[in-house]
């Protein structure tokens, strides 16, 4: 699927914005992901053409960074940090609760295609609000089961991030806050074993 003309125009703008067109690779890849939801090889080749760079370089760069998706996933991305500061405040139980609530395991997508759930060892910068999650790159902190329910309910019907008109993207979309204590509910022994050393 070729890139939309407005995306191409953006990429060309980026190339002019920097002292070197090569610096426009990351912004260009973001533009691709915003338009298409993920970054295909076809799009990489197109970016290479627009930036007049070898395609191998675009793939080398895009594959280095963890935020570019290479295949279609759920309409919404839910990332729960399980690094030590979040672990101290019960992140594992939150992952377990989310898994139970959505009926999927870490890394999977709900059958309605609404939500992809991921626990991440990469700190997301909200240790003070742990346990936390990022929903489409927006912070949700001090999570409780009620709050998670509210977030998930909202996401079930909300349009995908990359399909929203640009105007709606600007204001931080807040789901209604539900007050409550941080609890440690969830099935026992839920410590995620899925984050074994990667192969």
């Amino acid at each position: 699927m070729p890139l939309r003309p407005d995306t191409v125009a953006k990429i060309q703008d980026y190339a002019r914005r920097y002292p070197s067109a090569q610096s426009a690779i990351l912004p260009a890849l973001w533009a691709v992901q915003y338009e298409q939801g993920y970054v295909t090889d076809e799009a990489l080749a197109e970016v290479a053409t627009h930036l007049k760079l070898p395609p191998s370089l675009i793939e080398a760069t895009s594959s280095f960074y963890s935020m570019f998706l290479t295949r279609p996933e759920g309409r919404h991305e839910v990332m729960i940090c399980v690094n030590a500061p979040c672990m101290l405040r019960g992140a594992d139980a939150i992952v377990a609760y989310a898994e139970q609530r959505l009926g999927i395991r870490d890394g999977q997508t709900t059958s309605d295609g609404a939500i992809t759930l991921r626990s991440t060892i990469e700190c997301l910068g909200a240790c003070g609000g742990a346990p936390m999650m990022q929903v489409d790159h927006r912070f949700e902190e001090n999570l409780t089961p009620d709050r998670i329910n509210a977030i998930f309910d909202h996401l079930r019907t909300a349009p995908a991030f990359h399909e929203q008109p640009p105007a709606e993207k600007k204001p931080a979309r807040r789901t209604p806050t539900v007050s409550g204590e941080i609890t440690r509910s969830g099935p026992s022994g839920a410590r995620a074993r899925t984050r074994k050393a990667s192969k």
Partner: protein
Amino acid sequence: MGLKPVLTKDFGTEGLRQLDAYERTGGYAGYKKALSEIKPDDLVELVKKSGLRGRGGAGFPTGNKWSFLPKGMYPRYLVCNADESEPGCFKDRYLIEESPHQVLEGILIAAFAIGCNTAFIYIRGEYLPQYEALESAIEEATAAGYIGKNVLKSGFDVDVILHRGAGAYICGEETALLTSLEGYRGEPRLKPPFPAVKGLYGKPTVVNNVETVANLPHIVVNGADWFASMGTPTGKGTRVWCMSGHVNRPGNYELENGTPIRELIMEHGGGVWKNRRLKAFQPGGASMMVLLPEHLDVGLDFDAIQKAGSLAGAGAMVVMDETTCMVDAARRYVKFFHHESCGKCTPCREGTFWMSNLFDRFEFGEARPGDVDLLLDMGYNIDGRSFCPLGDASTWFPRSVIKYFRDEFEQHIAEKGCPFRKETEAAVAVA
């Protein structure tokens, strides 16, 4: 000593993210003063005299860093490092979120001081709301004439490019950040040449942390002596400490340097939660060595913390109570470093992979006698051998945990699993 809001003084002011509210709190006065009253070289001297040290982790004196730029070589670049990714750190996010203009003003002052006409902000990809906050701050500042050609008729031209990362902790390392900004894979570069001589696009470049530049407007307005009057002899000013973990009130606290750790955790943080006892704490973030309750009276200061056996790093304070499995804490960090290793050098790429496997073995009850020594030996082969500090640092916390809590590792081996997990699971079941 104690709480000393300088950077955070006006946080909470309504609309502070917007230019008019920021200006009402005295915003951009420092920038205007610098442009109209101070020559760039004098600005460098002023910052040198203030004793400001970089807040990104290494604590290098900022004014000195600026003065390493080779004379007469242009263009030169300023890059503000907003790639905050150290587990335990969330101060840059806070500073940007609450007052993006303060950060921007600092960048503009630094750019003026070093004679840079194109400044960059490299912000981590995960900080989307913060990216947007900076984006609109830049728009407003441009409209107000703070950014552009001949700013406030001073003859100074400046452009600010906001660049978003895409998920790579390594890009917080300054040379990796520059490589990434150039569009390549974010792999660190050989030093020398240092960025001051050959940085972005091969030009002289200064990389400064968000918190570092946020100090600049205040130093310009209030003077070097005012700044140097705060803190310790070798650690002037304040720092924003990011407190997390087992405390009652986690969050960011701006304290005068030298304030005892005890005050941060016990007073401002409200002490250890659930009336539990303090087991350990970790200043500086994932990379840094663990400290014990006996270190509570150490001052929050680069040198004091280093003397105590850890490093202040980027100003994190992760608090761990008596129920914490230190092996699991170390495991999380090791897995993090394994995940974030760029793969450039052998010790880090292979070593973090192996350590990560070994820690899983402890967690899942398969560790054997000798595994602790194996970890220590691996640490020996990684630390100081890696290309950049990421690999080195991956070993610091685990090794310090072995130093102080070796018995917990032995317990994992003897009991074929985590002795704390049973407790945690029991607690979960009760809840």
